[in-house]
């Protein structure tokens, strides 16, 4: 408890003074304890013993106890007395206090250790930082020096550069100067030359004059005999005509040369145009695959349409016969456009190829290939399934078509068919009924018509009978014929009529009968029968009676 400077006891009794004295002594005694602040006081057991015994002796036990109690209470420990202001010591509390103190001591020791550790660390950090600081300072120095050096070099180089520039300028100036000198010398030289030439010309003139004046007979040509001209013609005088002719010939020569050249150029031009057109066609034929790509459609669309227009235009006119500038420009421009497009296309393809190439080298490619394979497998499976399905369906179809073995199915089928048939039959019945109705209507109308006809005939017969009767009566007054009595009740009138008809001119009736043409053929026949029977009746009276009956009956029968 001695050497702890951190612990200060503000108010102390005289006892504490003693204690302090002791403690101060204790301070002096082990110098090792004072040397370092951080050193833990770990005296040996012996010193501890003496150390501890110094505080409390047999004389001052109570004081030391009370002092201890005071200390402990101030520190927050429970009192070691049993009762306050008592003298009995609470052993348990003492032990507790001791324990507590020990624990605290341990804690404090640990804390101290930690602190010292930190202290060491910080110290080493500090050292490290100081070292690095020193190094950095050195580096900074070095770099500063370097910079200075580089700056120096830079300055030197710049100055060199300037010098070189200057030299170059000087050289250029010199060159320019020399050129000027040359030109000036050339002009001077030319001038001198001209001067000398003029002098020379003068001399020549003089000489010429002298030579000509001398009339040198020597200047002559001796020839044995004059030779004929090479082309055999005679020489001609030089006249204006000949001049004009010469001019003409000269121009002819020139013109023919130009024409020849122009022909050659035209031929060449035509060939080149053909080649260009072919190229254009080929390029166009190469380009259409681009149309499928939607991206490029927008770009190519208007251009291609223009091109197509151009093609159309240019192909319509025989362009190798046109040589106007616009056509030429159009052609070249269109070829350039297409060539550019083709180039782009090829470049894109190249890029794609290179990309594919690159991808082939990546690892990703493996996965993609696997995916690709998986997909292909899936697709194959699907295809197989589909095929199987198709096969089964085909089989089923065949079964159905060939032989329905299953009863149920057949019944079903039959039912189906029956239903169909029933429906069809119903339809037909309906139709049939309609037709039947129609027929009945017609039949009724016919019967009505027949009845009417019958009635009409009856009426007619009655009339006829009456008329015959009259005739017969008129005739019988002359011959006293017996009347036909035996006549059926129903046909009394008609038999009488028949009797009368015996002598009537059948011809009269016939036309009457024939006139009533619209009536069916049967009445005509009946009338014919009447006429025939009448004639018969005229010859055979008795037979006539029966016959008309028969006739009547047959008539009726016929009518039915």
């Amino acid at each position, binding site marked *: 408890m001695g050497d702890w400077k951190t612990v200060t006891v503000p108010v102390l009794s005289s006892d504490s003074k003693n204690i302090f004295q002791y403690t101060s002594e204790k301070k002096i005694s082990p110098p090792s304890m004072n040397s370092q602040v951080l050193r833990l006081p770990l005296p040996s057991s012996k010193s501890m013993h003496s150390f501890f015994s110094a505080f409390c002796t047999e004389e001052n036990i109570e004081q030391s106890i009370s002092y201890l109690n005071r200390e402990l209470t101030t520190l927050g420990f429970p009192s070691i007395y049993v009762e306050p202001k008592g003298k009995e010591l609470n052993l348990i509390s003492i032990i507790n206090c001791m324990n507590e103190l020990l624990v605290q001591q341990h804690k404090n020791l640990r804390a101290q250790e930690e602190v010292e550790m930190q202290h060491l660390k910080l110290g080493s950090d500090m050292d490290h930082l100081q070292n690095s600081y020193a190094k950095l300072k050195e580096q900074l120095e070095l770099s500063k020096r370097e910079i200075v050096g580089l700056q120096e070099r830079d300055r030197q180089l710049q100055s060199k550069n300037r010098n070189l520039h200057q030299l170059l300028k000087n050289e250029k100036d010199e060159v320019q100067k020399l050129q000027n000198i040359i030109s000036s010398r050339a002009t001077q030289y030319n001038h001198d*030359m001209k001067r000398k030439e003029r002098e020379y010309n003068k001399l020549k003139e003089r000489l010429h004059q002298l030579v000509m004046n001398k009339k040198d007979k020597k200047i002559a*040509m001796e020839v044995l005999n*004059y030779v004929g001209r090479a082309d055999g013609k005679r020489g001609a005088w030089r006249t204006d005509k000949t001049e004009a002719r010469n001019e003409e010939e000269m121009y002819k020569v020139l013109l023919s040369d130009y024409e020849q050249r122009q022909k050659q150029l035209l031929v060449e031009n035509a060939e080149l145009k053909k080649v260009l057109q072919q190229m254009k066609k080929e390029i166009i034929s190469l380009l259409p695959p681009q149309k499928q790509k939607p991206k490029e459609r927008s770009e190519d669309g208007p251009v291609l349409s223009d091109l197509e227009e151009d093609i159309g235009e240019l192909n319509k006119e025989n362009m190798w016969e046109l040589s106007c500038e616009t056509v030429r420009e159009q052609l070249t421009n269109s070829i350039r456009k297409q060539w550019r497009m083709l180039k782009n296309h090829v470049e894109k393809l190249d890029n794609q190829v290179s990309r594919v190439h690159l991808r082939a080298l990546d690892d990703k490619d493996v996965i993609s290939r696997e995916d690709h394979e998986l997909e292909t497998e899936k697709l194959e499976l699907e295809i197989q399934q589909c095929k199987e399905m198709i096969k089964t369906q085909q089989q089923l179809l065949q079964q159905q078509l060939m032989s329905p073995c299953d009863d149920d199915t057949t019944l079903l089928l039959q039912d189906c068919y029956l239903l169909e048939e029933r429906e069809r039959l119903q339809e037909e019945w309906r139709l049939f009924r309609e037709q039947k109705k129609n027929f009945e209507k017609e039949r009724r109308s016919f019967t009505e018509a027949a009845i009417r006809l019958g009635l009409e005939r009856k009426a007619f017969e009655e009339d006829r009978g009456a008329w015959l009767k009259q005739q017969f009566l008129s005739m019988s007054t002359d011959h006293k014929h017996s009347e036909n009595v035996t006549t059926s009740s129903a046909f009394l009138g008609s038999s009488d009529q028949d009797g009368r008809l015996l002598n009537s001119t059948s011809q009269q009736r016939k036309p009457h009968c024939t006139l009533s043409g619209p009536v069916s053929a049967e009445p005509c026949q009946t009338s014919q029968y009447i006429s025939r029977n009448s004639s018969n009746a005229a010859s055979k009276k008795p037979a006539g009676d029966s016959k008309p009956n028969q006739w009547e009956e047959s008539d009726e029968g016929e009518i039915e």
Partner: protein
Amino acid sequence: MNFSEPCRLSGLLGRISPDGRCLASCVQYRLIVRDASTLQILQLYTCLDQIQYVEWSSDSLFILCAMYKRGIVQVWSLEQPDWHCKIDEGSAGLVASCWSPDGRHILNTTEFHLRITVWSLCTKSVSYIKYPKACQQGIAFTKDGRYMAVAERRDCKDFVSLFVCSDWQLLRHFDTETQDLFGIEWAPNGCVLAVWDTCLEYKILLYSLDGRLLSTYRAYEWFLGIKSIAWSPSSQFLAIGSYDEKVRILNHVTWKKIAEFEHPATVANTKTVVYKEVEKPSAVEMERLSFPPTRALASTLFSTQSKYDISQVPVSFQYIKPVADRANPKMGIGMLAFSPDNCFLATKNDNIPNAVWIWDIQKLKLSVVLEQLCAIQSFQWDPRQPRLAVCTGNSKVYLWSPAGCVSVQVPVEGDFQIVSLCWHPSGDSMALLSKENFCMCYLEREEVK
């Protein structure tokens, strides 16, 4: 390949007649006319003085011999050996003489280029052309012989006069924008006249037949200009060789440069074939050696065979830089010639005197380089096919054709330094001329294929 015996010659005056039947050669003051195939002497004429110039007339009936010192031109007839004609210029002097295209007029240029006198062999008329220009190529005839262009200079200005050759009528007279006209040359089609300036100015002017200026071409300033020009046989191209070791080709449509051929000291293009002449030691059989050595033996001992090797590109040539302070330096393109089929152009760069450069005109690229052991003296194309004959001052003649090239030793005793050659119009033979002698070389039809 057959060679004839060498015959005497002087002054490199060996000329084959235009119809190819005869060969005229001069020995001092004698004119010897031989048969071209057999070299048999047909005629022998004697002139009054040493002959300096010989020219056949266009119909091969007459030969003129000019003697400049005496100022006399003598004309001889082949049909009538007795016929003679002498033109004496007297005190006027004679500097140049030439035939007119019709073969009946002779144009004499008097001394100091005072005038050109046109003497007629048919009539008694004489014409004068005044103020002719004193330049290398002052007179030019069109290929068809219709027109003649004469360069004139009056009052320190250059002019060109065009005459109609049939009656010597002045057709056109125009001035040219040249400082100092150096030469004129007609295009083979006879419609364009090329006029170029002195080497101090690179300027070439193209005039139409009617005197209009068609175009002017200037490649650069200040440096020495045009050295030589050549028209292509079809008149399509005009090749201009200049002192900057380049040949520029102009085209006849726009008269603009379409190609520029460089002649560098190193050729690196792998497509160019370089034939290098190498010596191969001649084998001499030891038994043949005898004393005193015969002439034949001597010649074989001293003459070296050579053959062509194909060098691997890149090849470097011997480059000569001429002395700077001399006039007319040996630099630039000194020789230019188109092949008759218009496919090749042969050039020689005077800076690289040992090489002949052959350019393919269809591709406008350098096709072949022939590297010789000695400096090139002259080369000429075969008038019928693309075959080039080259001579370098030794006794070998070199032939190149697209199939290959060959070097042939002329089997002549003694020294035979071929300095010039000229082809026979048929292309079957050529005359090889040296200072003292000449010989004919007969080529077989299927030669050098």
